């Protein structure tokens, strides 16, 4: 800011350029919320916002993992399938009478293991993340139907309790436990990115892998770590989804990776890596959630409008990032 005021008085009000995409997302969110409130009286209920979190808690967790990957300049296409596989494995193991605690441990181990493997292949054999995670996507989706061709309901006591427990305020507004878990994940991830060595390495690799390597940063370890983190987040997301739907279905969360990537990009994270915040990702997920809520409130619009609107927003934000990139280069 001081340099800005030194060089030219006119640019005193210039926004810090790194924050422009996040601020744009925030503005968009406020505008959309404003439209909602002005059009529908019920939209101003606090519960509407809470519901956005309840319906998108799992998406938020997965998007947090994806933010790490995209910050290093990579991409993880396997997330949707890993979410489905986790839900499916949990449902199948619970059906077979395994104790819930053990099921949680197993379910939470599969995702990161797959992520670790993919990270190793990406790093050691120098194969593009896109194709490796594509294979991971095929693999996890194939595993889903391998486990069962039909959806498996979950009747376990712990799961139903997690699903139905309401944490509310005196006005009767409530959130689910999944939302709290999602917030914990967000908080840990935001802390890790901002204040830990791992976080700085992630930004450094995304900014310029060669420089990071020359600086002696552990490029390989960090790169493998982000795919493992993404796998872990997908596994947590899968558990949350199974809390939400109380079942495991082989075709659940198809195409979710695209929603997740869209949320991260709309949240201001640059796809070439190096710039972005967890806070932006939270905003991105909220934007997607509010779009869906608006479309539900409208009633006359169909669900495919969601896809078209998400696509248009994706375009707008990528264009914005590109324009910012060109102007300041």
């Amino acid at each position, binding site marked *: 800011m001081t340099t800005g005021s030194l060089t030219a008085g006119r640019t005193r009000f210039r926004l810090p350029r790194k924050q422009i995409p996040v601020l744009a997302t925030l503005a968009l969110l406020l505008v959309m919320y404003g439209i909602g409130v002005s059009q529908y009286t019920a939209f101003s209920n606090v519960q509407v916002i809470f519901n956005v979190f309840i319906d998108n808690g799992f998406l938020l967790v997965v998007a947090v993992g994806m933010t790490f990957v995209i910050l290093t300049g990579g*991409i993880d296409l396997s997330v949707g399938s890993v979410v489905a596989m986790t839900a499916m494995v949990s449902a199948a193991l619970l059906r077979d009478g395994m104790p819930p605690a053990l099921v949680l441990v197993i379910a939470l181990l599969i995702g990161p293991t797959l992520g670790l493997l993919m990270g190793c*292949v990406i790093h*050691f*054999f*120098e*194969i*593009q993340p*896109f*194709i*490796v995670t*594509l*294979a*991971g*996507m*095929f*693999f996890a*989706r*194939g*595993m*889903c*139907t*391998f486990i069962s*061709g039909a959806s498996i309901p979950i009747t376990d006591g712990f799961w139903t309790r997690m699903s139905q427990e309401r944490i509310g305020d005196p006005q009767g507004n409530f959130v689910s436990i999944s939302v709290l878990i999602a917030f914990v994940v967000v908080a840990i991830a935001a802390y890790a990115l901002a204040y830990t060595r791992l976080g700085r390495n992630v930004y450094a690799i995304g900014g310029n892998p060669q420089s990071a390597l020359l600086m002696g940063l552990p490029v390989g370890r960090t790169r493998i770590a982000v795919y493992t983190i993404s796998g872990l987040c997908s596994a947590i997301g899968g558990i949350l989804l199974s809390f939400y739907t109380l079942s495991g279905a*082989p*075709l659940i969360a198809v*195409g979710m990776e*695209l929603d997740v*990537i*869209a949320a991260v*990009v709309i949240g201001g994270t640059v*796809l*070439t890596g190096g710039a972005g915040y967890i806070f932006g990702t939270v905003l991105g997920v909220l934007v997607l959630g509010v779009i869906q809520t608006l479309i539900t409130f409208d009633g006359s619009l*169909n*669900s*495919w*409008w*969601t*896809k*078209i609107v*998400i*696509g*248009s927003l*994706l*375009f707008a934000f*990528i*264009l914005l990032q*590109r324009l910012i990139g060109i102007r300041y280069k």
Partner: protein
Amino acid sequence: MNDTMGRYRTVIGHRLFWPAAVLIVMLAANTIYRPGFLSIEVKDGHLYGTPIDILRLSAPLILVALGMTLVISTGGIDLSVGSLCAISGAIACMYISKQPDQNSLGVVLTALAMALGVSLVLGAWNGVLVAVIGIQPIIATLILMVAGRGLAQLITEGQIITINSEPYRAIGLGHMLTLPLAIFIALAAALLVAAFTRRSALGMIIESVGGNAEASRLAGIRSGRIVFLVYVLSAGCAAIAGFMMTANVSSADGNAAGLWVELDAILAVVIGGTSLAGGRFFLSGTIIGALIIQTLTTSVYAMDISPQTSLLFKAVVVIAVCLIQAPAFRARFSRRRRNVPPPATTADKPKEQVPA
């Protein structure tokens, strides 16, 4: 001795050797599993049999993969092809379903022209994003992949549009010279693309753009125009594939048509030996790659395994093929076993996986 070894190495070293070997092994494994696999019979003057089916069903994939090959050889990727298949099929079926005489050839041709036109415009949109605005291809085409499904559903109003049009049905199920028409369409497209790219300098120009777009531009090649062109072409191929897919079932489903075809197409291109990094492309390899994928799908069906589970096999094939191609992986192996040619040691993998 040296001479035979040399000849052996030339054969092994040929870029089509491993894809072709995999295809042959797969066909052989299928024949062992089901002795009637390769038999072809004549019914009503048409040839029938599993090999013919594989050829017919792989036609849409071959088309999509042809476009994808050129896109990938410029160092790009086109994720929107599946959505484009859905859109083109939806437009064609929607138009035909609204006409009084669905069997009129004029109606069908108008429908095809309309759908193809829209697809080319959408391809041009992709091209502008990548070539003019300079957005990463995977992201630029992601937009249309997400929004395109919505568009397809918008066109069909969320319904599955069923039509009853003989000329349209023929695109998917018709016959010519005892063989399915779809095979000829795919073959014609392949020959056309091959003629344009290999009989003129176009192919070389595309490869040079893929190798280094900036250097090509400085050397006087209009890189931007070439990149734009390949996305338009890819969209055109996807549109025709979309006609075939919808004609096969005489209905358009905005949600399901062409689902995951982009991944199959990318897989076909990679199996065919075209590197995802761009700079080289092999059309014949892509066609063999598409045949491998369709054979894999057909064999998995034949074993009473659910279609979704075939993804598991595809995952193994993708990773195996990529590892074989990866210089880092080859280097690791050749360091350990210097006397054996690297591809020979690593390429056993897909062979083992396929019959499993």
